[in-house]
């Protein structure tokens, strides 16, 4: 049956009546015995939020669902974010972890085993001068371990770090959106935007320029995603995404440092 959450106004399917949590915003609600009937509004909402290809992978197939989602989020982000269902948090988490972890791991391996001399030369040149010179030298020194143990550790840590980063990013973005009065449809809407917006991090498979390009693209897509999933104006969405980067300078640096170091091996 279809039910509607009184907090986030999202409709969702449920098997039972009585007290339960909204799958979108997580807030508790009570589904009455006589479920909400399908109205025109519900039909419209259902057609808008039919699900992204990834959320419909059971009918499309895993590979096709993933690929169509990637293509849509990169080149038709508005359409993809409009179709995202807010009660598919687990699927969205899976998409982000899969889409970011694998290329990030590949990028790290390429960097370690194929491009190390070149990146080492760059780091040496950059580290020779400037205020961050010693820091860069230490980072380079910490990333020297190419043993099988370090590689295995990276493989195990990458999905965990992606998951932590995804939720930390969504939580900070949602708090910013709340403070700016832009969070209209609950945490699930912010999370959907952040999860699908992480697709450009596929570019982390390219050592060097891939990560910065992917990061900027991700920030832009997160703003587009917030606009569509929360049904807010572009300015508000951009502010909600950019305010944390401006205000939470240290937090962003610590997370970046932790992620970078964890992927470069155990620091000495």
């Amino acid at each position, binding site marked *: 049956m279809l039910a509607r959450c009184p907090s986030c106004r999202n409709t969702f399917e449920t098997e039972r009546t009585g007290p*339960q949590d909204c*799958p979108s915003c*997580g807030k508790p609600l009570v589904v009455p015995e006589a479920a909400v009937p399908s109205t025109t509004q519900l039909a419209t909402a259902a057609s808008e939020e039919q699900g992204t290809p990834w959320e419909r992978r059971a009918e499309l197939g895993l590979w096709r669902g993933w690929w169509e989602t990637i293509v849509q989020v990169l080149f038709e982000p508005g359409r993809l974010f409009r179709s995202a269902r807010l009660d598919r948090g687990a699927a969205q988490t899976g998409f982000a972890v899969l889409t970011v972890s694998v290329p990030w791991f590949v990028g790290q391996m390429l960097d370690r085993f194929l491009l190390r001399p070149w990146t080492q030369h760059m780091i040496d040149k950059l580290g020779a001068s400037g205020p961050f010179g010693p820091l860069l030298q230490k980072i380079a020194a910490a990333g020297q371990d190419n043993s099988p143990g370090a590689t295995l550790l990276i493989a195990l840590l990458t999905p965990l770090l992606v*998951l*932590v980063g995804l939720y*930390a990013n969504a939580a900070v973005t949602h708090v910013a959106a709340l403070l700016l009065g832009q969070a209209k449809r609950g945490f*699930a809407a912010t999370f959907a935007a952040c999860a699908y917006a992480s697709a450009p991090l596929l570019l982390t498979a390219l050592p060097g320029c891939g990560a910065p390009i992917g990061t900027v693209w991700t920030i832009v897509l997160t703003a587009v995603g917030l606009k569509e999933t929360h049904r807010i104006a572009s300015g508000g969405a951009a502010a909600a995404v950019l305010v944390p980067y401006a*205000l939470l300078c*240290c937090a962003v640096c610590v997370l970046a*440092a932790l992620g970078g170091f964890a992927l470069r091996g155990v620091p000495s």
Partner: protein
Amino acid sequence: MKCVVRAGPPSVHALGLAATGLSLLAAAAVLPLDAPPLSLFACPFRAATSFPCLTCGCTHAFAAVARLRFADAFSASPLGALVALACAAHAAWTVLRLCGLGYAPAGFAVTGRVRLGAAAVLAGNWVFLVLHGAP
């Protein structure tokens, strides 16, 4: 106004946020503050302006909360200490809900007054860091 309401098992996002909070606290407990990677980074905002940013001191606050040194945590960053405690509380409550606790914290409307209060808290935290000298 009720502080808790009846609820079923935690949602996926409640579990994800609890795992994230626990991971951050575990990292803060395990990683030493005076060794890489935490010792290597410097706040670019502070480097550029000599003023702390809003989250300066949060790493020390998380580390102190993870070691149950609450006075040190609040001294390093009141905001960081509160966030770390909120992470721990959310994780503990989520575990209890997984074990069958049928209650969850009641939500509240984020009104203009609440937003103003939150902005005042952030500003107060920053003033504290400036006056106290963030770690």
